[in-house]
């Protein structure tokens, strides 16, 4: 993560995250992402390199078709941008939306 320049309280943060859960960013994880993003004041945008979408819109997030292994660029802009990006990264990469990763799935 590159902590952004702090100009007039406008903090900009960017991070690249990788989808780790086997089923990818289907509707339930997308909802979790949108719910979390919406708790913050800052703007959240997400890109898969092809589409740039609003991280607070479930319809738009579902358009990313982010499969397991896909890398997404998250950008947050606003007073709580840093908190938001940390929380979103935690959800995607560490909690992987409380779903199994491909390795964990095989063990089941």
């Amino acid at each position, binding site marked *: 993560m590159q902590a952004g320049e702090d100009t007039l309280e406008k903090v900009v943060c960017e991070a690249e995250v990788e989808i780790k859960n086997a089923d990818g960013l*289907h*509707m339930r994880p997308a909802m979790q992402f949108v719910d979390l993003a919406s708790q913050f004041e800052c703007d959240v945008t997400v890109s898969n390199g092809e589409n740039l979408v609003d991280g607070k819109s479930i*319809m738009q997030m*579902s358009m990313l078709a982010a499969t397991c292994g896909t890398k997404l660029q998250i950008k947050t802009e606003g007073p709580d941008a840093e908190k938001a990006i940390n929380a979103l990264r935690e959800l995607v990469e560490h909690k992987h939306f409380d779903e199994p990763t491909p390795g964990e799935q095989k063990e089941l």
Partner: protein
Amino acid sequence: MKFADFVCFDAVLPELKAKDRDGVIVELVSSLDKAGCLKRGKRDDIIKAVIERENEASTGMGKGVAVPHAKHPGVKDVVAAVGVSSSGVDFSALDKQPVYSVILLISPVNSPDKHLQAMENVFRQLQQEKFRKFLRQCDRPDQIEDLLREADENPFLC
């Protein structure tokens, strides 16, 4: 992925009879069954799976559309049915508004990537106000098919 790759055009219902959510799900899954898109004898099980999924969290995304779906071994490939209700149905949508257009999608258990690609297409089209409006106006199955094929060829722009 395009609509033509997964929508079963023999399972499009421009005039849904059901007036409630579960009724719409039964109607659409049954039309997929009649069209031969489901493995034999799996209809009831699939209906149950879609309703259970819907109970977890509504797929009524707002703007009058819902996308009920489930993963189930009762299909070989991703299949979808499309229904339109002129009176609107309560799907407990995010915006609390009635739902007029329903795209019901059933995916096999072991191909999450295909499911995501089909969903990507569905949402890319449903984002477009024109597409939503035209879909709602369809009152014959061939109009729905034409609209979806048209959207495949020339995606509507906002």
